[in-house]
């Protein structure tokens, strides 16, 4: 799943986080290296591909933006199933958004276990003076759940590149670890494949009970 036939790594990365924490801006900054205060560009920033070459390994990152509104929270599993990495974005000026991140982490751990590489990003550090999420708390939490933590500013283009690079490296490592236990790996692939229809049918089963 994570590898294309040619040996290129195909990784799926989801951007999760509450609305207005800057997921889209991060993505835009990374892919296009542009930040638009007024959001005037007509470019869509929901799904973007990025090709990387890390240590001679070709990597194709598919980055999925997700809808962050609370009412769509329940749709999370549909978005992040089969993803190799997740970037959990919160706004350092908004404590609620950090709470959301904690929720996401819990959910992801439950659904995908250790298959998914987690990265937590504290965005909007250009608004440092309005910070409400304590720096220590965030980092200690990240360590606790085994996630990388980055401070980023899409506006100032700080930490964005590093964030994605580190995530990609970790994903490659994770992938190669799994590949070493190759027999397990293939069976795992099959299992993951099966999950797709199962989760789908679970949606339907909800309807069935109606």
């Amino acid at each position, binding site marked *: 799943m994570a590898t294309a*036939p040619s040996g290129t790594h195909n990784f799926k990365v989801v951007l999760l986080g509450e609305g207005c924490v800057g997921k889209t801006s991060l993505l835009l900054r990374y892919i296009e290296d542009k930040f638009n205060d007024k959001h005037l*560009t007509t470019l869509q920033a929901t799904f973007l591909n990025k090709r990387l070459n890390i240590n001679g390994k070709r990597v194709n990152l598919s980055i999925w933006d997700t809808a962050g509104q609370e009412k769509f929270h329940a749709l999370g599993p549909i978005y992040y199933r089969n993803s190799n990495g997740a970037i959990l974005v919160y706004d350092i000026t908004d404590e609620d958004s950090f709470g959301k991140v904690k929720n996401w982490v819990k959910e992801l751990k439950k659904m995908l276990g250790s298959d998914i590489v987690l990265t937590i990003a504290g965005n909007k550090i250009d608004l440092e003076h309005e910070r409400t999420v304590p720096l220590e708390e965030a980092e200690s939490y990240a360590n606790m759940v085994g996630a990388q933590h980055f401070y980023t500013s899409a506006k100032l283009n700080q930490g964005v590149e590093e964030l994605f690079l580190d995530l990609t490296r970790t994903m490659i490592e994770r992938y190669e670890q799994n590949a070493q236990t190759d027999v397990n790996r293939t069976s795992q692939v099959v299992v993951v494949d*099966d999950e797709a229809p199962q989760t789908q049918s679970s949606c339907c089963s909800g309807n069935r009970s109606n």
Partner: protein
Amino acid sequence: MWFGPNLQRSYKYMMFASKMPSLRIDQSDLKCKNGCDYFGNPQWQGYCSKCHREQMQRQRKAEKESSATLPKPEQKKPERGLRIPSHSSFSKFEEKRLRQSETLKKANLLKFSVFKKSSTDDHDHSAEKRPPEFKIPGIVNEGMKRDFRTRFPQLGPAVDRDSRLFVHSFIMDVIKCANVLSVDELSERVQRQYQRFMKHMDTSSHFANVEADTKELLMDFVEKHAMTYLHELPSVVFSPSGTDDERLDRAMSERIQQLSWVGERHLECKLDRNNPDCRQLLYKAISELLGMDSALSPGDKLSRVRRCCRHVLRLCSAAPASADDLLPALIFTVLKANPPRLVSNINFVTRFCNAQRLMTGEGGYYFTNLCCAVSFIENLTAESLNMDKKEFDCYMAMPASIGGSAWAAALSLCGAVREADEQRAHAQKLLTHTHNIHTRAEQLAANAQSFEEQIAKKVQDVLTKTPLEIKPRRELPRLGNLKEINTAPLIDLGTTTAQEEPQTKPEVTPEPLAATLLPTESTEPNITIQPETEPKLNILGFEVIERQSPSKSPQNLDQTWDLKQTSSLELLTPSPLGFTPFDSRSIDELMTPDEFGTDQLPPGLSNINYDIDLSDFSGDNSIAEEAPKSEPKDPFSPEALRKITTFDPFAPQTSKGFETALDSFDEFSFVDQRKQETDPFEVVHRGQDPFSPVELSKDPFFAPEKQSTSILDDNDTPATACLLPSPIQPQSSNKPT
């Protein structure tokens, strides 16, 4: 489990359920459920046989109705219609109108196909156990071949064959397993097939030169063709037997109808239905979404969804559209589109699309969003719309068509607008086309004009560069030279001719020159008039015309000769054409001129005629061959004397005799000879130049023409031929003068 709720489910589902192991049965359950005293049977849902049959029939009927009118809301919620009967008729009308305008003709077709499809499904299901006899039609193979050639022209036949083989085995495998495996197992198997093919592409030598991107395209290609065929088979991969897909489709459709009142403000997406652009985009998105059902392969369906989402993204154009904007707008679109067989389509893609692409590609992303939208709609509550629970319930209880009518109207407008746009675009195209044609026509006209001018200019240039006068000048000196050179023989001829006159007349006349006789007659009078002017012209001597004119010597004999000579010169060009008929006639003419001469013309004229003949004859003889000349000369001289005494009788005889002798000569040869002849004669004339100037004045030539025309009626078309060239000479003579 299968008593209460199952009865309301599909017939198909019941059949499926009946296969389940029976539960433990109580004594009371053995009786018929209907309360009649017969025993019931679990196979008959606990009814006795009679009640069961009735029940079944009722149910089947209901099933058919509901499936036939699947998308129609008024059928779906009969209790609602009953509750508000006054609305039902209106809603029906409203719905019909909405359907017609909003969802395109395509959607109507689709609905029909839905009906057809479901009915065949039912049918198939009842005969589920029938052993499948599948044979992949050759069309599939042929279609693949063709498609392969167009899409991968750079790949070799080995790849083509491999992929076709794979598709074949793939299809057969799926069909074989379809009745044995559950859907999930089948999906798994299909996914494994994809992986197998991918591995094959990696390992096989046939694919060694194929690039990674092309491999992915090949994968799509294989998937497309296999799935397109399988899709057509009833209940194998699309809403397969043993699943709820169809029922869920219907439930989904109902649900969406029920939620038609949900507007843009409920979903917090910024859409303005008064904005025509916005309407257009929504309309396009909807039509793409509806088109998803008509696409056959998962890949095609995905690309439909992708296009739909692109339109939706443009809908929320306020920002660089993020997922936060996309999802609500997509939900709204799905609500307004109510795509047919939505759940079936989604399940089909999820199960049988190549998982790799579904998870990573752009299409996969949008498809996931669609799944989210559908999931959201399924689980939609008052909370998720941020509205009061009571209000929500109230809306839900409302007849389906009311809420959406505003948007429906807007969208129906869209349909009309789009049609108008298409028409306009078409008209525009036609207009530009005609405009093109116009401009090209004008261009052509301009071209023609310029070409004409160009040609005229060129002609003008050529004319200015090479004036017409030059040519005649060039010719003339030549002739003059030649004539000058050959002076000697002429003198002899001149002497001979004088003697021979009478004899030659008949001989010459039969020859083509007969025509010239007549002109000479005309010239004679002129000649007599004009001798005075000649000497001046003689100085100019070079010009043939002058010489010709002088050739008409004061003496009749000389004149005739000259004339003949000139005429012969002239004849040189036209002779090959004009000559032959002339000869044939000549004999008759011979007689006629003589007779005419005697009868009609004054005696002097007739004599003149004969003189002319003589000159011709003498010319012929002299030039043709020396030997014949010498021979005839001698006899002629005496004969001529005799003839003078007796004109008519001798002339014909001698002429005939000569003719036979002369016949051996070709007319052409004569002509050639004449050329030579002319020269000598002319020389002679030069000597006699004083006379020639008389002729220089064109008058003699014009005169002959007139006469010739008059004579033409009698005999001589050739005469005209002879005369025609002559005018050139006079002209040239004019110019120098």
